[in-house]
């Protein structure tokens, strides 16, 4: 799933329209959702962004292939064209002086750039400049790793924002959005699926735990052995069922825990064959 974080509504509008999202709960931020994406309207400024990101990840725990995207307009020095979309590889917080580094592990179709985040609008930026990036990254990285945090900044001015209309902002974001979605989805497809046991293997583990009257510690060990089966041979459910049959436990009658412990030791040996 893609998560979009934008500061103001004109930045959010193209995303909301692309995904036909619906508004859901949110105290510090407006949160919009559909099956494929989430949009968090954070508000401007460091504190608002940090609170909004924290609230969003508390309400909706991110999945292992979710990508966080901070999308917004920025100021830029001469040398960046109006409307140019850049992918950020370094963020400097102008107030604290701290630097942050999103990991760009796949190629980007966009120009890479450094972003400086200020507490107020910057009139003569030396790098790309915004008012949210550092707080977004610093909060987001507590929930997802830095390779899944993407910052895209679209140049809207060179220090003078007077002529910028909300519609112009929406147009700039709308133009860059398809490429951004494509890039994020492509990276997500490179990521590993959630690790662990499949449903059948989990069911087999549950059966063994019940039949052996397993304590919490025994349950943990049985799960670990099943995971080993799964990662080594990819057939944990089948192997566990075979073990139950070998032990004469397929009839579903539980045994006493003391005996269960002995069977667990045999499961360990069975697993290492």
């Amino acid at each position, binding site marked *: 799933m893609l998560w979009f974080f934008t500061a103001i509504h004109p930045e959010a509008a193209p995303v909301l329209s692309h995904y036909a999202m619906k508004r859901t709960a949110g105290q510090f931020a407006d949160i919009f959702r559909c099956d494929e994406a989430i949009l968090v309207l954070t508000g401007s400024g460091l504190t608002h962004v940090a609170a909004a990101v924290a609230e969003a990840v508390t309400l909706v725990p991110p999945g292992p292939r979710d990508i966080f995207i901070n999308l917004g307009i920025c100021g830029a020095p001469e040398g960046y064209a109006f409307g140019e979309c850049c992918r950020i590889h370094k963020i400097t917080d102008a107030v604290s002086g701290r630097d942050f580094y999103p990991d760009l592990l796949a190629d980007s179709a966009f120009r890479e750039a450094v972003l400086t985040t200020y507490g107020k609008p910057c009139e003569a930026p030396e790098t790309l400049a915004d008012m949210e990036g550092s707080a977004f990254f610093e909060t987001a990285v507590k929930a997802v790793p*830095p390779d899944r945090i993407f910052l895209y900044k679209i140049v809207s001015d060179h220090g003078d924002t007077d002529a910028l209309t909300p519609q112009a902002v929406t147009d700039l974001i709308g133009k860059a959005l398809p490429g951004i979605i494509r890039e994020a989805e492509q990276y997500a497809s490179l990521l590993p699926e959630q690790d662990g046991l499949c449903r059948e293997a989990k069911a087999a583990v549950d059966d063994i735990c019940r039949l052996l009257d397993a304590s919490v510690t025994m349950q943990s060990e049985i799960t670990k052995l099943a995971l080993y089966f799964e990662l080594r041979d990819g057939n944990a459910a089948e192997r566990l069922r075979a073990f139950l049959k070998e032990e004469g436990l397929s009839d579903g009658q539980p045994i006493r825990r003391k005996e269960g412990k002995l069977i667990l030791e045999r499961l360990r040996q069975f697993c290492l064959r």
Partner: protein
Amino acid sequence: MNDYVNSVSADGTTFRKAFSRVYAEEAALSYPRARKILDRLPGSTVIPIANYKNLFNRPNQSAVLQKQAPALILAVQKPPFLYPGAAVCQDFGERHFYYTSCIRNCPYDCEYCYLQGMYPSGDIVIFVNMEDVFAEITEVLTKHPLYLCISFDTDLPALDGLTGFLSDWARFAAANPSLLLEVRTKSAAVSAVSALPVLDNMIFAVTVSPEPVRERFEHRTPSLSARLKLVNTALSEGRQVRLCFDPMIKVRDFETVYGELFLTVRETVPTEKLRDVSAGTFRISADYLKHMRSHRPCEITAYPYTNTDGVYGYDTENVREMLSFARSRLMEMIPEERIFLSEELPKG
């Protein structure tokens, strides 16, 4: 490439080329070694940083994914530069056993590698101030000789095309006969090694594994035959060569799989010329394994190891069987006093 991540997405997107991003400490850029390395990486994006730790030690990194597209970090190392050898490492009977770490992390991607438990990142750090390391070693050498492993936390020969560090070390070793260097590698860097002077105090310790083990667990490493070519070239040049069968992994049909490896070595390597050999079973600190289990679930990390005094390994019976098997095969090639095992076995 390993099974855990997808190397190519459905539409053809792949991870970036290794070192397409170079993060460089501003202080490091003034060192000639840094300039040389950057000259060898035209087209890479160079991103200035204040301190490598701000990048390398970040919490919550995807180290396994970073391994698919590692960034290079150029930095200036702060003392101490020498560390005492760890208990789980073999000292080969050397009294003053230390290691140094002028590069952190390895271009290869072995599923059992302890570096995954040690470092939070899959990126590679190269320290460019080797003179400071040499100065500390020179100071230590005034007190006692030194057995120094310089390729523990990396594979120095594998990266030599980029760094050229081997020739720096060789020059330093040539000038300091009481220094004994060990350069551990899985590489096939024949030309890098052959370009060096032949020194009695520079040991090339080549780790070998059976092909099925290499294919399954040692991603991106050269084949067994390529590694043995390095061994044979080095031996023919009169170099000190150590062969390392370490770590041995408990795979199905262990004796068949490793038996083939020992046979191949016996048939293709003039083993009488080897300085010594080592063999060891997989073992790792409990803290490292815990970290690896949470970040890289795989056959190696999921195995139900036994914890003995904070070190995870196979149970005693398995270890004895594996080491006894290795010793018996190695004794067919080399005198017993030149065989070093990760654990003592009863004589036999």
